[in-house]
């Protein structure tokens, strides 16, 4: 009997407690829903803030650049002139300089990065992998201004004496390609900027390539070795096709960096607003023009600099879009 009463009182209290809990829970749930709602909105606002900042940058670039676009139109893109006194501007010199230096950088950096990645994933002794990989990553940690100073004060004089002069002597007289090696051999110019850029871009491309090479399934590699492939054949015909997408992504990362690099290029490219006629001739890139001339620009000159900045933005976006398209096409080709 006493047990029953205890039971009933227990039941009662449980009911009461349940009542209290369910009221409490409803209140809590309501509170949580409100909190969740605000959290949702707050995080959404911050992610929109990022988007708005990006759009704001594009818009302000375009608005500031508008007087130049209005005056020169599309002609601006291929007009070879940079005359501040007569207010006559064209972007061709800077675009060519940007493309040429970034192109040279990639031509040098991609094979080197591929070599580094192959070495780190295939032939390097295991105990050396980590220190060597870290030291290549250290190359990425060197600030770009140091690459610039190094390029101007140390690399350029040596480059002039030991590379430019022999190259000019040997190749300068050749038909068709001789003109590429003409001009003054003072160490600065498009080629020097490309070489310095190559070593800035190298660690980025190499790090991506190494990471994607490492995720190739061992069973693919081992099957290829089992069929009697040499190490090089495994790399070229199994690892590289499997990781194609990542490799292209890494190269485009490097290209994006090379296109927008400012300080290192400004130091060694020579900063001459003339159309470069050879690999040794001084030129200018979009980023280096901006860095050099913003201080004293006004009026049309000022908005022309903004127009160049806008073009750099567009070029970088086009490069990224091309990378996406290339990856998609590679995927499709694999599917078929």
């Amino acid at each position: 009997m006493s047990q029953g009463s205890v039971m009933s009182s227990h039941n009662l209290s449980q009911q009461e407690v349940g009542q209290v809990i369910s009221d409490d829970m409803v209140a809590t749930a309501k509170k949580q829903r409100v909190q969740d709602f605000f959290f949702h909105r707050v995080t959404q606002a911050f992610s929109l803030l990022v988007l708005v900042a990006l759009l704001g940058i594009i818009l302000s670039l375009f608005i500031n650049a508008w007087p130049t676009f209005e005056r020169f139109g599309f002609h601006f893109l291929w007009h070879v002139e940079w005359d501040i006194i007569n207010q006559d501007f064209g972007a061709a010199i800077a675009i060519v300089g940007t493309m040429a230096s970034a192109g040279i950088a990639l031509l040098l950096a991609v094979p080197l990065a591929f070599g580094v990645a192959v070495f780190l994933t295939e032939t390097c002794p295991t105990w050396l992998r980590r220190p060597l990989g870290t030291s290549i990553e250290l190359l990425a940690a060197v600030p770009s201004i140091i690459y610039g100073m190094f390029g101007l004060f140390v690399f350029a004089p040596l480059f002039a004496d030991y590379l430019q002069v022999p190259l000019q002597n040997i190749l300068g007289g050749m038909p068709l390609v001789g003109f590429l090696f003409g001009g003054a051999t003072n160490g600065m110019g498009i080629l020097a900027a490309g070489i310095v850029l190559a070593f800035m871009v190298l660690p980025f491309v190499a790090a991506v390539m190494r990471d994607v090479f490492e995720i190739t399934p061992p069973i693919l590699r081992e099957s290829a070795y089992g069929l009697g492939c040499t190490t090089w054949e495994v790399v070229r015909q199994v690892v590289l096709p499997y990781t194609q997408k990542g490799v292209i992504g890494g190269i485009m990362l490097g290209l994006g960096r090379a296109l927008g690099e400012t300080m290192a290029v400004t130091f060694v490219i020579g900063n001459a607003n003339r159309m470069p006629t050879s690999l040794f001739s001084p030129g200018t890139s979009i980023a280096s023009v901006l860095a050099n001339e913003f201080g004293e620009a006004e009026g049309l000159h000022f908005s022309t600099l903004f127009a160049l900045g806008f073009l750099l933005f567009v070029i970088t976006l086009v490069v990224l879009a091309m990378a996406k398209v290339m990856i998609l096409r590679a995927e499709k080709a694999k599917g078929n």
Partner: protein
Amino acid sequence: MEMNKQLYMKRRIISLLGLAFSMAAMAVGLAVLLWILYVLFANGLSALDSNLLTSDTPAPGTEGGGLRNAIVGSLMIVGLTVLVSTPVGILAGIYLTEYGD
């Protein structure tokens, strides 16, 4: 089936050349890194003293001085950058993973 010795040699030589190239690439990368570090230390160590941290950049043409102003400025910029970008980055990241698609 008889083994084609010539083909086998050719493949091995190509492989060796490829691996030699990859080692050379690694050596070039390391050499450039060491070269830059050497230049930095060889030219920079002589300027390292207590003045570097405790006094400001002098007027052009005067002796002595340090980089206190530049160091403090860098620290302030980095600190403000972290303060501004961390909350924005974290919250935007949360939105993209939790609510976004």
